[in-house]
């Protein structure tokens, strides 16, 4: 572990004495990241119209880039010559890249998965391309993110065929070994294995246990957040965090709704990513304590309040809902302003959770949060059940 631990060291500062939540510090080559952390997604080497300086002001400590997109444009040649994505985009803090496998399955209907890798038609010139575990790591080594993902065999979460799920789960483990063997920069980048098994308890358990035997610095929990029922979702998160070693960080992929973040932190997750806050901003939706404001609605035409009175982001300091209403979905500035607020909202939520874990008040925080989030007091069963499974009663 000696060399690899240079690329990541994880320190738990405080554990919640009721739930599985923990506050920690993840030291990465480019930045020390306080966990639990939300990582905004900057797909193509940029965060939807925001300057790196603005992301720093928002206290973003780690952001995500997409290997599939970056491998296509600007491409590995350019990224290598630029000295990696950090240099290319002018971002000095930590980065994480996915493996590219997810996009292939979600965006490309023609993908064909074999033991060798994922074969697909290039959307640019119709040529056939094979993304193998080795190729994914090669691209991610060029991009140079602090944390990189193994290539996994992705199956739609709601898929039901046991044999296919079993095959995907086992193949993911075999691909992990190939990824680890192909990794050229283990002192600068950490590969996270991805726990698979979709909604199958046994397969997920098998996957998590198998990954635990590997010499890695952290784990990702994949195959969730793909349209499955919440009642199916949280037990799989809980199962995974229950098996995974608590001294290494756990990353739940594709989760970013506020209530999901709170529940999953209570279940022991340390890292999250999601396109939701920035994407919903582009559609004119701002995140607030009890959900979302759709600024296109006429009721905001003369509403002179900021998006959120308790928010201290630059949008809430300078702008009213009425102004945002009048430019939303017309001016790019509206996107930027709402994105700033939505990222601030996510960052603020994570900060509150960290502080409450450190102060030993996390269970009370969760109770208050849920009460405010569901202002009609109708708490969904999954929220009540998941939280009570870790000792927090609503």
């Amino acid at each position: 572990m000696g060399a690899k631990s240079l690329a990541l060291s994880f320190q738990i500062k405080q554990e919640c004495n009721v739930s599985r939540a923990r506050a920690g510090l993840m030291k990465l080559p480019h930045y020390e990241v306080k966990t639990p952390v939300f990582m905004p997604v900057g797909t193509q080497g940029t965060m939807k119209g925001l300057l790196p300086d603005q992301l720093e002001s928002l206290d973003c400590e780690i952001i995500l880039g997409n290997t599939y997109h970056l491998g296509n444009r600007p491409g590995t040649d350019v990224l290598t010559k630029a000295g990696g994505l950090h240099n290319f985009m002018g971002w000095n803090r930590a980065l994480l890249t996915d493996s590219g496998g997810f996009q292939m399955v979600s965006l490309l209907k023609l993908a064909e998965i074999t033991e060798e890798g994922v074969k697909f038609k290039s959307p640019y010139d119709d040529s056939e391309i094979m993304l193998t575990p080795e190729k994914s790591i090669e691209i991610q080594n060029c991009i140079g993110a602090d944390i990189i993902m193994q290539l996994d065999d992705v199956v739609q979460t709601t898929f039901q065929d046991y044999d296919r799920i079993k095959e995907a789960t086992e193949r993911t483990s075999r691909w992990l070994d190939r990824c680890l063997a192909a990794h050229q920069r283990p002192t600068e980048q950490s590969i996270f294995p991805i726990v698979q098994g979709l909604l199958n308890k046994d397969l997920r358990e098998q996957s998590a246990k198998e990954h635990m035997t590997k010499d890695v610095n952290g784990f990702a929990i994949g195959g969730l957040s793909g349209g499955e029922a919440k009642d199916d979702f949280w037990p799989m998160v809980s199962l995974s965090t229950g098996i995974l070693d608590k001294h290494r960080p756990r990353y739940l992929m594709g989760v970013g709704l506020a209530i999901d973040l709170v529940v999953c932190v209570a279940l022991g997750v340390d890292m999250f990513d999601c396109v939701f806050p920035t994407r919903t901003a582009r559609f004119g939706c701002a995140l607030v304590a009890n959900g979302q404001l759709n600024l296109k609605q006429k009721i905001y035409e003369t509403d002179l309040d900021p998006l959120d009175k308790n928010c201290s982001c630059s949008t809430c300091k300078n702008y009213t809902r009425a102004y945002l209403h009048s430019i939303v979905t017309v001016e790019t500035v509206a996107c930027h302003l709402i994105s700033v607020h939505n990222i601030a909202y996510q960052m603020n939520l994570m900060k509150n959770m960290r502080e409450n874990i450190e102060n030993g008040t996390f269970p009370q925080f969760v109770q208050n949060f849920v009460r405010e989030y569901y202002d009609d007091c109708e708490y969904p069963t999954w929220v009540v059940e998941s939280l009570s499974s870790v000792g927090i009663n609503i």
Partner: protein
Amino acid sequence: MRFAIKQVSCGSERIGTLTGFFKSPSTVIETPTAALLTQGGSVSHLTAEVLSKVFTTPQLLWVPVSNSLQLEPGMRAQGQGVAKFCGLPEQLVCVTSHNMSEPTPPGHFELEKVPLWTKNGKKMVSAERYMDLMEVYKPEIILAIADGRTSLNEGYKRILKSLDRTCNMLDTCVYRYKASKKLKESALIGVVVATGMPKKSNESIKHVLTHKDTLTGVALAGVTDAYEESDILAAQKLGDIFKTVGDALPKDLLRVVEGCWNPAIIVAAIEHGWDLFDGSYPAKLSNAGHVLTLNFDPDRLSYEPCVLDLNDERYKEDFTPVLEGCECLTCKKHTRAYIRHLLNTREMLSSVLLSIHNLHHFDQLFRHARQHIAANTFQKYKKHITKQYEAYNLPHSANGVTDVKTDISMNGTEYMKKRLRVSDDEIPTSQVVNGSL
């Protein structure tokens, strides 16, 4: 607000100041200068936070009613004017009826009304309605509403109409302005039209000057309908117009030029004593993915083109800043290759980085112009800038400037649609809520 001439050079070019702003008494804006073009009340693509990284002192914003009329209900509710409503309370504002650089359908005039092409379609605006709006916008400077969107090749009948309508509208604006308590702190600018026809142009000037005691300045219109190209011929003709109209105006009036003019034409206008320009040129460049890279030092020969098209493949691996030595945030932190990548992937940050550089650099054009006027070396500076433009236009001859114009004549909405069509990473909304892309 007051305009005062500080220094007149050996020619007609001059340095002046705009001072006495009610909301920021200590602010001094030096002329010649350009305002910052706004869209929906925001400087194109820049939030207040980002704008403060480009300019640290209050700037003059150029606010066309045509692209900001949708703000009216909110502004009325708040009652503190357009700058405050748009999150830019320290900035100073000049309001005008149209964005002169945005082509609009011809015609559609009614007797005493001008069509404004807004985000919600055509709105017919009379001088009365315009002055009602001014009481809501509460700008530092009001450009009187006019029928001035006519090209230099416009027919005689159309010019007569334009002149007639503009005179009547100015009379109403002046009357309303004098009677309004709310507009005591605003300055009114009259608009000269029909400038392509010397005789009619003189009539227009004469009429504007009947209100001389009320007006702080005069704006030049009637030289473009935003469709035609500013080729070399037009540049010559424009130079003559700048001179004849300028010479016919009393020196103490602020002189304003509307329209998307390139730096060569701008220095020609400065030479004839024109003081204030709208900021549509850098905005158009940014929307097209172009950057302005003028060399401001007349003693240094320049072989680099003064406009670069960063969409070009040739910048793919160019890890140098847009302009070596430029002090803007874009040049200090980012490369041509990165901007090209952002343009290529249609990412919104491209427009932000391009706007930051182009606004900063365009501002430098005026800063250097003022220094040269002060040092009595403006002629040399003018030649230096003009030469770079001629060199830039030569290789693509006919379509040098045209290129830019056609590329970037999209209006805000189309542009936004293009930008929001977030290329490849878009997935169906059904997946958005839990999206794990």
